[in-house]
């Protein structure tokens, strides 16, 4: 999916919502292409559920518009929107069986009986639950309930599927199975989906694009590789993946879009345009760092504090404030068997350095 070429299938424009004095959504723009799988990734309370509820019509926004497939649906009630929702709590109908739950939407829309029967059979088959068709949903495990919730929402072939942390109640193993099954299901039905999670691995693994949300705004919307390699803001950098982060002051800006920075751990260079004297945050992903000095690139010195063995690689932590950690990941291991307390040189390429204006403390 390209980012701008096709006109958006779902277009959320300047959606804003406040509960009393607290602003929960601060003018969110979100464009999703047809067939795309977009994750909303962000910390608890940043407004993910609120945004989904506004798109589904379960909550009205204070201002802004929701356009789906070229039609402004902002004023439509949820049952006229054709937007399916999988709730975090599943919200299965407790008085109905598995098959009746899946059939509910089609029956509400007055679909013909044999079509309903065929669709229910097909979806129960897709979620591998044909054998449990007549079981009450109260007698299902968490993973089974989750699958029924997905099948129930998909059975009416909604234009758009919204999934609000559907896997958060599942254990790790089941979660991984479900992630693969969900992707397969959505692909087979060909549905556009927005998926809420605060699990970054889940988002990186499943999404075509990821929207990183913070305090009621989308800070970055990009494909997983860009989100990881080029986080747009310090928040996105900190929220996704690990990083070494150094604060400092720009001492000199060169002509080639590169600046020289004085940090707490030495002088480094980074690509970027800042005037001399600007406070900045420089960062680098730990797997892009190496032990020892590299001529012509960035080198700092730090005191080793801890080494964590992680199977295929090791992670070394150095003495630094908690909000500005220094850490390196290496497949090769610690050179010369250095022990905590040893001072070591660490280097990385200037081009790999990420640079931001220093966030307000």
């Amino acid at each position: 999916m390209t980012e701008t070429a096709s006109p958006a299938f779902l277009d959320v424009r300047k959606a804003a919502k406040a509960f009393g004095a607290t602003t929960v959504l601060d003018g969110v723009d979100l464009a999703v292409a047809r067939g795309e799988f977009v994750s909303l990734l962000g910390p608890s309370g940043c407004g993910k559920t609120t945004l989904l509820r506004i798109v589904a019509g379960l909550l009205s926004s204070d201002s802004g518009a929701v356009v789906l497939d070229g039609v402004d649906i902002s004023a439509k009630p949820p049952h006229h929107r054709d937007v399916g929702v999988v709730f975090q709590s599943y919200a299965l109908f407790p008085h109905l069986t598995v098959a009746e739950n899946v059939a509910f939407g089609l029956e509400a829309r007055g679909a013909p009986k044999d079509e309903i029967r065929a669709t229910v059979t097909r979806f129960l088959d897709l979620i591998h639950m044909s054998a449990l068709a007549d079981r009450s949903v109260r007698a299902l495990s968490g993973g089974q309930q989750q699958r029924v919730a997905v099948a129930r929402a998909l059975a009416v072939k909604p234009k758009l599927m919204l999934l609000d942390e559907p896997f958060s109640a599942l254990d790790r193993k089941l979660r991984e199975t479900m992630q693969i099954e969900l992707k397969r299901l959505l692909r087979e039905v060909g549905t556009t989906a927005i998926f809420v999670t605060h699990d970054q691995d889940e988002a990186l693994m499943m999404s075509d694009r990821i929207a990183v949300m913070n305090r009621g705004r989308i800070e970055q919307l990009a494909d997983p590789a860009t989100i990881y390699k080029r986080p747009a803001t310090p928040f996105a950098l900190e929220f996704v993946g690990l990083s070494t982060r150094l604060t400092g002051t720009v001492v000199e800006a060169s002509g080639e879009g590169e600046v020289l920075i004085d940090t707490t751990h030495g002088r480094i260079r980074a690509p970027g345009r800042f005037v001399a004297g600007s406070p900045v945050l420089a960062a680098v992903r730990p797997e892009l760092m190496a032990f020892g000095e590299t001529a012509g690139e960035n080198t700092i010195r730090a005191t080793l504090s801890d080494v964590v063995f992680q199977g295929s690689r090791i992670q070394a932590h150095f003495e630094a404030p908690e909000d500005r950690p220094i850490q390196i990941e290496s497949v090769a291991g610690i050179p010369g068997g250095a022990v905590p307390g040893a001072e070591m040189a660490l280097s990385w390429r200037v081009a790999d350095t990420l640079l931001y204006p220093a966030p307000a403390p």
Partner: protein
Amino acid sequence: MSAAAASLAPTGGQKDRVAWLAVPAVGYLAIVYALPLVFLLARSVTGPEGFTLSLFVQFFSDPYSWRVIWNTLRIGLLTTLVCLVIGFPVAIAMARAKGLMQVALLVAIILPLSIGVVVKAFAWQIVLRRDGVVSQFLVGTGIWSEPQRLLFTETGLVLGAANVFLPFMILPIYSVVKLIDPRLSEAGATLGASPLYRFRRIFLPLTLPGLVSGIAFVFSMSVSMFVIPSLLIGDRFQMLATLTGRSFLLMRNEALGSTTAVVLLVLAVSIVVASSWLAKRLGGTQ
């Protein structure tokens, strides 16, 4: 809920021991309630020559008896209907109300229960008189052309009884509605179901156990009420309970009194049994 409670309940011997906690209540009921009932039942089937059903034959062959039974059922049904129509929306509003509002509504429903039935019935006497507020209001708004008396009419009786029994309709419905996850209706909406369809297919089935117990409470109480009809409609209109009372207290006719009492008892017991069976069946799917 019942499934979870059952699975968490202690098993085997311990459960049996817990049952002993009910002994005082059972003993008390046996002495003050079951024993007199047995005497009553015995009295209704004893004649000069021992066991006989002649009292019942006599009772059921009298057209007046049938009129009393029909009076009882009609007033019971009407009272239940009024309570249902007024109580159902109130119960929903109460369950969906938040914080202080909910507390205030609950207090407003429960507090009147602490006022005796006699007091309430006397109050209704005043309200339903020819110069009472209802009459004045209806004349004032032009609905009635001249003042009328509602006291000593069936309408007045049903209104008064419904007022007294309303909490027993509201509370069971309220407690069931409160447990319904509001997400269920939202889920229905996102599946394309209209508000009416959601009410019919989601809300109503889940509320049914509460409706059944509310209806059973109010119906069984209103077919067996004694004080309210005595004060609001008088002697000309007899229901099974008032006839029973009159037979014992005024006419000193124990034979008739015990017969009507047993008929009423059978009626009330079958309502309770039928409704708890129904509630269990419906509740089993919730």
